């Protein structure tokens, strides 16, 4: 039977990203009238245990060459697995490893690849992907004309699926990774930020931009964030100026976040930044310029200099809690 495959890389865990990916694949399989097969290159127990509630089949790859430190082995073993599954579509998350291998997997499967999917539709049997283009100034609908369509999605923007009544069986599939899987090998991993929560998973984010005019105000932003159980982020201007670490960057070339609340302080709202926050539920902004584009993308805002805002805001919020 034809299938939609959700693909999980070796380091994938059962987090919001995985839920979104399983949800997107379930919906797509329904729309296409195919089965949903979850393929896991890793063996995270919670992921496997939960995947069986959201798929027709869950396959754990067994592959001697497969390693969480060798990207080429992941590509090659996922290719081998997908080949035998009559895939109409292969869905991947937005992590660096998935983005890296998606186009190559599409090519190896003689299909096509489309990235950064914000919405997926099936129209007359054809897969159509909605994605931002021109730095967020326009939206394109891209149709896959060859099969399978290998699509990496903004995983956290997709709804998780309802639990199935029947659990899928957990299968093991033995595959061989061919080619030179030792050509690239991870020899070290460095976490840059001092927070344990990934920005992509944060439910509250306080973000600063060019308007803050230096690194010091970000300390204040951090204190504000702590008060509302949030994380600190930044726009490109603040990162390029060296005020904060690059892994705090939100936008087209940084993280695509999906918090319940995003508070933008001293951020004008360039389209490249807005691309990173289009999945936020509520956006609030503080800016001196009432005509700043950020105000066209937020639910409520305060036209004020941040210098007059952060201190009193901290005091008032702690008084309320």
């Amino acid at each position: 039977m034809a299938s939609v495959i959700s693909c999980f890389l070796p380091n994938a865990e059962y987090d919001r990203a995985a839920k979104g990916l399983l949800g997107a694949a379930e919906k797509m399989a329904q729309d296409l009238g195919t089965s949903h097969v979850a393929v896991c290159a890793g063996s995270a127990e919670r992921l496997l245990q939960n995947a069986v509630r959201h798929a027709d089949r869950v396959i754990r790859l067994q592959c001697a060459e497969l390693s969480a430190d060798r990207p080429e082995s992941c590509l090659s073993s996922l290719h081998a697995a997908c080949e035998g599954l009559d895939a109409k579509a292969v869905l991947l998350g937005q992590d660096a490893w998935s983005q890296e291998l998606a186009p190559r997997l599409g090519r190896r499967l003689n299909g096509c690849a489309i990235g950064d999917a914000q919405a997926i539709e099936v129209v007359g049997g054809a897969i159509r992907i909605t994605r931002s283009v021109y730095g967020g100034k326009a939206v394109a609908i891209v149709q896959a004309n060859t099969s399978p369509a290998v699509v990496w999605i903004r995983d956290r923007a997709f709804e998780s699926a309802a639990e199935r009544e029947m659990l899928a069986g957990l299968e093991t599939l033995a595959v061989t990774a061919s080619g030179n899987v030792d050509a690239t090998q991870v020899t070290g991993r460095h976490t840059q930020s001092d927070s344990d929560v990934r920005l992509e998973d944060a439910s509250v984010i306080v973000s600063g931009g060019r308007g803050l005019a230096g690194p010091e105000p970000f300390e204040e932003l951090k204190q504000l964030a702590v008060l509302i159980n949030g994380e600190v982020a930044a726009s490109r201007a603040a990162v390029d100026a060296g005020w904060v670490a690059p892994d705090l960057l939100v936008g087209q070339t940084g993280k695509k976040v999906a918090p319940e609340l995003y508070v933008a302080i001293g951020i004008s709202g360039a389209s490249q930044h807005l691309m990173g926050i289009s999945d936020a539920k509520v956006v609030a902004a503080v800016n001196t310029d009432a005509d700043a584009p950020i105000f066209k993308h937020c639910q409520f805002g305060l036209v004020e200099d941040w210098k007059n805002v952060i201190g009193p805001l901290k005091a008032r919020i702690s008084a309320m809690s």
Partner: protein
Amino acid sequence: MKILVCLKQILDPEVSPRDFELDRTKLRAALGSANLVTNIFCENALETALQLKDSVGAEVTAVSFGPAEAEDVLRKALAMRVDHAVLVRNSKIDQFGSAVSSSVLAAAIRKLGDFDVIMLGREAGDWGEGQTAGLVAEELGLPFVAFVDTVEPVDSGTKVYRQTEIGREEIATQLPLVVSVTNNAANVPRIPKTGDIMKAHRQELTSWSLEDVGLSEDSIRQSAGGTEIVDLFIPERDTICEFISGDSIDDRLQNFAQRIVDVVRRV
């Protein structure tokens, strides 16, 4: 060490939304008053390559696929002191994506000979597909690392650093290798010197047709078939911002704080 860098000319992504218009028939942006510029991530790749030229004497070749105007990005690359520049001219095909670009670039690279590292930008500021680099690697049968911000030559190959959602990975690689480059503080593109800009206009620039690299208009149209843009539009914004009101700044701050707390309590 021989390095090849691919450069793409795009519509200036900094054009203001007010001046941004679409050509609805061709389903792409209209040029309007915008400039054509080198895609920024391609320039980050170029800078990364040029730093290796400065440090270990790498020989750097720049290649672009595009219309005659794309000569500008190569003249600028020459002014930044690449050793060779090659334009593969495209005069006929209006709209093409990464499938076409990658097959043309790979054909040009094959004709140019062997390289140790092939560098491309992580994505372009127009369509942002982020696929060309990976597809060039597939075309050439080479390993690939995406989102690289540093390349260090070592005895056995290179050590590259790449950005991920949790920080950075250090990756030991064999050569030859294809990388897509992202920006960091160290690869901000250099500003060419005036003298070098003048000189660049007189320097040799190789110009090839599609046929020169063994392709034809027909053959590349076929490689474009995988995906199709079926619609392109400027999104309507239906969000109406409620500007927090109040008689005094104290009132407004209080109201703003209350709204924040209301949302946070629902989380």
